[in-house]
Each structure stands twice: as structure tokens, then as C-alpha cells.
């Protein structure tokens, strides 16, 4: 960690969260989705558009940038904004950078949002968007290796071959998260599933079945970042940002990949925990980027909840269930709630720490970890540790 890192532990807070409904076809533009989520988050915090002086988002050319959302909402007093290129790997970096901007005094109230018509327009899991991101795809696309489900399946199999991870391990995670979604009125998929249902679901890219893959979703989600002091005076219980870390790693697309079963999160986790002054044993609830079942398994290892290679048995033991020692993806995650590219994980962590998660509430949750895509598609990742004030 840099010696002169600004100590911003618990200096800022998330004061509000906002959602649009999640659907297969929103019928509206990403700009409209973004504006609705921003306004909903402000309302949740007890703030108005006039209070906003910062906007931030992440996208891959598929959403509304702050330079559109600001004017659309008549926000004329912005002193800070961020429009970060990147998919789910930078979702938590955006909130971290907003926290830094607030801690540094460049803005006082920043709304971080992600709006995406991921089902009806830009399908992240497909190829309709062309082949962007990296010149390295030229070595892959000619062979029909183009989509995230294929890429994650490739790394999942490497993990299976090395550590004996099984389909039943992945299935246990899908079943557990669906059980959480059953208790979440916002979730798109609320029908309980069994391990047999998982094993019977159709192949996408072996070793991945349909129920290994997240739900491409239309929707938007936003969170309000402000100073901890100001948050304490607002409508909702503030949730403190105890740590925010992000950074790069090795490319897993091609080249310089020493071990494909280790993600960039392994390098990031020690910095994150050091910032918060906490460790994995202190985490009460974890909202872990689940673009696929395997992304959770590998992150449970890389964030230190179990030894390397034991993520599969850890999940199958029931450890990640709502009543387990580490409830994971309490809202159902991207696999069952919906896919809003990282931000709905942050918002769920906030709901849990505020004690407002209804039937799926983890009793006494005080510390939450929330993570971004762990660095398989872009060599970068990010994460937050949040704490009840």
C-alpha cells in the first residue's frame, strides 16, 4: 500500500440507493433508466437533484454518460464527474473514486449509477456488440471464442482440472442464490430450483450450463456517496465506506497468464482489508460478482474465505447460504435477481447493513464485502468494504 494513502476509512458513506424495475425489456432508453435510478437514490437519501454536485458511471459504450444525465436532470452545478470505461471489473472502482473525491472535498454529493438495457439492446454475453475491449480478441474470435460465458467456462474448467471442483459445487451456488431470490421481491427469477434442475439445464459452453450464467437484464441502479458527517443527518442509516480498492492484474485473455485459476482479486484483497483494518473473518455478508457461478467460487478463495482450491467444497457445505457463516449474494445476485453490472451488489450490501433487507436480512450484519468482476475479461478488478455506522 502507498505510504501516503489518504486515510479515508469511514470518512464517506452511502446515504441512499435507488433502482428501476428489472425487466427483459424496459421500453425506455438507458438515459431514462439512469435518470430514474439517480432520482430514486436521491429520494431514498432524502435529497433532491439540487444537492447533487457529482455524477459517476462505468460503461462500455452502452449507457448514458454523466454529460447526458447531468443536463437531462438539470444538474448545473457539477464540480466532479467520472465516466469510466470498463465492464463489471470497474463497478466498485467508480464508487471508490467518488468516495475519494468526496473525502478530498471536490464534491459533496456524488450519485454513482449504472444503466443498461442488457437484455433488449446490448447483450454482454453475446456478440451483437461487435468485438471490442482488446486487440487480443483477434487470437480468439476466429475460433468462435467470443463471449464471456465461454471465457469463464474455460477458466472454470482449469479450476476443475486442477482442484477437482465439480458441477455439483457450481450447482450448489446456483441453488443457494435462487433460494435468496425467492425472498427478494425485486428478483427476476423467484422459482426455487434444485440441484437436479441445475444439472438438467441446457449446456451453454461446457462446463457451463444455463444456470451457471447470470440474467442479462434491463435496468438501472444508483447509490449516493457523501461525507459520513452529512450522511448522519439524512433520512436513512448511513453505511460507511471503510475501504475501496481497485487495480490491474495480468491479462487472462492471452499472454502473461501465470495461473488461470488465480484472479486479480488475490492481489487486491490484502490492500482492501488493510485499508479497512479488517479481515475476511470480520465480514458478515458478501455480495460477490456473479456473472457466472465460478466467478464466486474463485473469489471466495482469492478474498481469503477459504484456502485456494477449496471454493467448491466451501459453497457445497452451505457456508454461503443465508443461515451460513458467510451469506453470499443475499439478493440472489446476477444469477437470479438481475444483472446491473455490479451496482446492485453494492446496493444490496447497503440494504443489509441498514437492516432493511426484509425476509432475506442477515441478522446483525455490520460489515459487508462487495466485489466487482475479478479480472478475467479486463485485467482489473475493484471492491468495497462497507460498515454499519
Amino acid at each position, binding site marked *: 500500500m502507498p505510504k501516503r494513502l489518504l486515510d479515508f476509512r469511514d470518512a464517506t458513506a452511502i446515504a441512499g440507493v435507488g433502482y428501476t424495475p428489472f425487466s427483459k425489456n424496459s421500453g425506455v432508453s438507458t438515459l431514462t433508466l439512469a435518470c430514474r435510478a439517480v432520482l430514486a437514490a436521491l429520494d431514498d437519501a432524502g435529497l433532491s437533484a439540487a444537492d447533487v454536485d457529482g455524477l459517476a458511471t462505468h460503461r462500455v459504450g452502452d449507457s448514458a454518460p454523466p454529460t447526458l444525465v447531468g443536463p437531462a436532470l438539470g444538474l448545473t452545478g457539477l464540480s466532479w464527474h467520472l465516466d469510466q470505461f470498463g465492464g463489471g471489473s470497474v463497478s466498485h472502482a467508480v464508487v471508490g473514486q467518488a468516495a475519494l473525491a468526496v473525502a478530498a472535498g471536490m464534491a459533496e454529493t456524488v450519485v454513482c449509477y449504472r444503466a443498461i438495457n442488457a437484455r433488449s439492446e446490448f447483450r454482454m454475453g*453475446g*456478440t451483437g456488440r461487435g*468485438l471490442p475491449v482488446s*486487440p*487480443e480478441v*483477434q*487470437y*480468439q*474470435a*476466429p*475460433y*468462435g*471464442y*467470443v*463471449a464471456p*460465458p*465461454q471465457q469463464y*467456462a*474455460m*477458466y472454470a*474448467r*482449469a479450476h476443475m*482440472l486442477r482442484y477437482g471442483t465439480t458441477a455439483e459445487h457450481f450447482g450448489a451456488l446456483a441453488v443457494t442464490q435462487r433460494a435468496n431470490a425467492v425472498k427478494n421481491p425485486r428478483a427476476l427469477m423467484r422459482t426455487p430450483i434444485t440441484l437436479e434442475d441445475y444439472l438438467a439445464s*441446457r*449446456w*451453454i*459452453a*461446457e*462446463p*457451463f450450463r444455463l444456470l451457471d450464467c447470470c440474467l442479462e437484464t434491463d435496468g438501472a441502479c444508483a447509490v449516493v456517496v457523501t461525507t459520513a458527517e452529512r450522511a448522519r443527518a439524512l433520512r436513512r442509516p448511513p453505511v460507511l465506506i471503510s475501504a475501496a480498492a481497485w487495480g490491474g492484474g495480468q491479462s487472462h485473455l*492471452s*499472454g*502473461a*497468464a*501465470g495461473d*488461470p485459476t488465480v484472479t486479480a482479486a488475490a492481489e487486491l484483497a490484502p490492500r482492501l482489508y488493510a485499508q479497512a483494518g479488517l479481515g475476511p473473518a470480520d465480514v458478515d455478508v458478501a455480495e460477490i460478482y456473479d456473472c457466472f457461478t465460478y466467478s464466486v467460487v474463485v473469489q471466495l478463495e482469492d478474498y481469503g474465505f477459504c484456502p485456494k482450491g477449496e471454493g467448491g467444497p466451501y459453497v457445497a457445505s452451505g457456508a454461503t447460504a443465508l443461515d451460513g457463516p458467510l451469506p453470499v449474494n443475499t439478493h440472489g445476485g446476477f444469477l437470479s435477481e438481475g444483472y446491473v453490472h455490479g451496482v446492485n451488489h453494492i446496493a444490496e450490501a447497503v440494504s443489509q447493513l441498514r437492516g432493511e433487507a426484509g425476509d432475506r436480512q442477515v441478522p446483525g450484519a455490520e460489515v459487508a464485502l462487495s466485489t466487482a468482476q475479478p479480472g478475467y475479461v479486463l485485467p482489473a478488478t475493484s471492491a468495497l468494504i462497507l460498515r454499519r455506522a
Partner: protein
Amino acid sequence: MAGHRPEPDRDSREWWERIARHEFAVQRCAGCGVDRFPARAFCPACRGEEWRWRAVEPEGRVESWIVARQPFVPGVAVPYVVVMVRLSAVPDGLAYGNWRGGREPRAGERVRGVYREEGDVTLVDWEPAG
């Protein structure tokens, strides 16, 4: 299968030209001697910008594979197998290609690249080294 055409960039054009001549080449840094793949202008070990092409046998070991069942590429029939190969010549280098084994790959097995003409493009598939 007929998938996407490769889209060479200024760093990789010569690599593809050599593949078209059925020469599998990696880059060797002139400064520190480290071999690298895929093609790029800088050595990630010493940041040197001087290098030469080095023809190597297209050999490696199977690191992983998938069986594509959902047609993500229009016009390409499923199923097909994509294999991830760790190159013998570049320990950190991972190459991808279609599998021509007639059976599923095996973890860690030795494989060799075989050239496939796809229209006016040459691609590299992989088969058991025997």
C-alpha cells in the same frame, strides 16, 4: 467453421503474415532475451522495444477447453471445441484454437498446432502431439 475474421493490428500484422506461410513465430526481446506471445511492441519484462521474430514449433500443453453448445457466432455450427494451450516456447503464453483431436482433450496433454485455410485466412488449430 467460419467464424470472425482476424483483425490484425500494427503490432500483429506480421505474425498473421507468417502464419499464412505456415510459420509459427514468437517475439524474442533483443534486450533481455525473453520470448513473448501475443505480438506486441514492448517487452513486458524489460520494456525494450527491440526484438526479432523467432520461428518455433507450434507446440504446447492443454491448459483447459470448452465445448461451445450455444451458437454465439452466427453461421457457425455447434458444438465445437475451443482449447487453451500453454505454449512450450513461451511459458506465460496462452494460445487458443479449435480442437482437432476426434475426442475430448485431456488435461496437460501435449499438442501441436495445425494450419487451417479458412477462405483467404490461415488459422491454427490444435491436435494431440501423439
